[in-house]
């Protein structure tokens, strides 16, 4: 582990780079973009980003693949019926707990 002054310099570099990436596009693009292609592109970005972040990461997000699959199934069904963010997220957690409890019972 480097000495504390170096560590703080690392933290500063991390924070500045991360902030600039978030800040510059938000400050530069104030006008509404008119191009139909770019507007369509930006319309799809959130869905594409969240899809890529969720899969395959969700399979490794819990202690076992089976509990992750259980949570995924419950989340997909409830999301399909448009149950809202918190109910979907908490039900997925509940399903994970239930599956892991069953696994412990069976093993």
């Amino acid at each position, binding site marked *: *582990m*480097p000495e*504390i002054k170096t560590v703080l310099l*690392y*933290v500063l*570099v*991390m924070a500045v780079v*991360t902030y600039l*990436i*978030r*800040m*510059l*596009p*938000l*400050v530069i*693009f*104030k006008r509404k*973009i008119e191009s*139909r292609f*770019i507007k*369509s*592109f*930006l*319309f*799809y*970005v*959130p*869905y*594409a*980003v*969240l*899809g*890529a*972040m*969720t*899969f*395959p*990461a*969700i399979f490794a*997000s*819990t*202690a076992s693949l089976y509990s*992750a699959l259980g*949570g*995924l199934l419950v*989340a*997909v069904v409830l*999301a399909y019926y*448009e*149950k809202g*963010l918190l109910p*979907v*997220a*908490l*039900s*997925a*957690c509940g399903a*994970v*707990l239930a599956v*892991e409890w069953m696994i412990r019972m069976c093993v």
Partner: protein
Amino acid sequence: MQQMQSQNSFSKGFKDGVPIGLGYLSVSFTFGMMAVSSGLPVWVAVMISMTNLTSAGQFAGLTLITAGAPMFEMALTQLVINLRYALMSLSLSQKLDNGVSTLHRLAIAFGNTDEVFAVASGQKGEVGKRYLYGLICAPFIGWVLGTFIGAAASSFLPETIRSALGIAIYGMFLAIIIPPAKHYRPVLYVILFSVGMSCLFNYVPVLNRVSAGFVIILCAVTASALGAWLFPVEEGGDA
């Protein structure tokens, strides 16, 4: 251009941010634990979370700090892993109402995390500064508090609870993307393409050496560009 409605209520934003904050608790808890076990003082772990507010970047940064990597490598790694935020900020810039001045943009940019962006994008029409400030509150508190608890009491939550909380963030993501995919087919195609590509980059040898942050950029840009090319959004639509 017709007048679009703007979502600009602080309390609505705060309420929408609570599930994000709860989800962050478990992730930042893990970060705090890892930071302390790799030798950082508790206050430094908390300071990293307060100034960075990003998961993948912080975990990678921790590895580099411990290894004593060159500063340049730290900067480059953060740039690649976090470049997806540039895409999100660009997308968010098109959703802000007229009341969000440069000064407010400087402040809001700091809190534009994956989940904050996702929830803001999910609002109908435009969003205002009060809504965004409200939305950022709970995630910030959750992220910093979780880091502190994880760092201070390394084995606070039982393993089963931590495991269950791990899926919360993804459950939320699914709740955001599935309803629009159900109502508008092209969204479904874009999601499926992006997911397929992301899985390829995770499981295929050689491809899986590309950093996770960069994979997300590649998938998002390719899938969204394909979507925009094949299914351009109607003028005046909810884009």
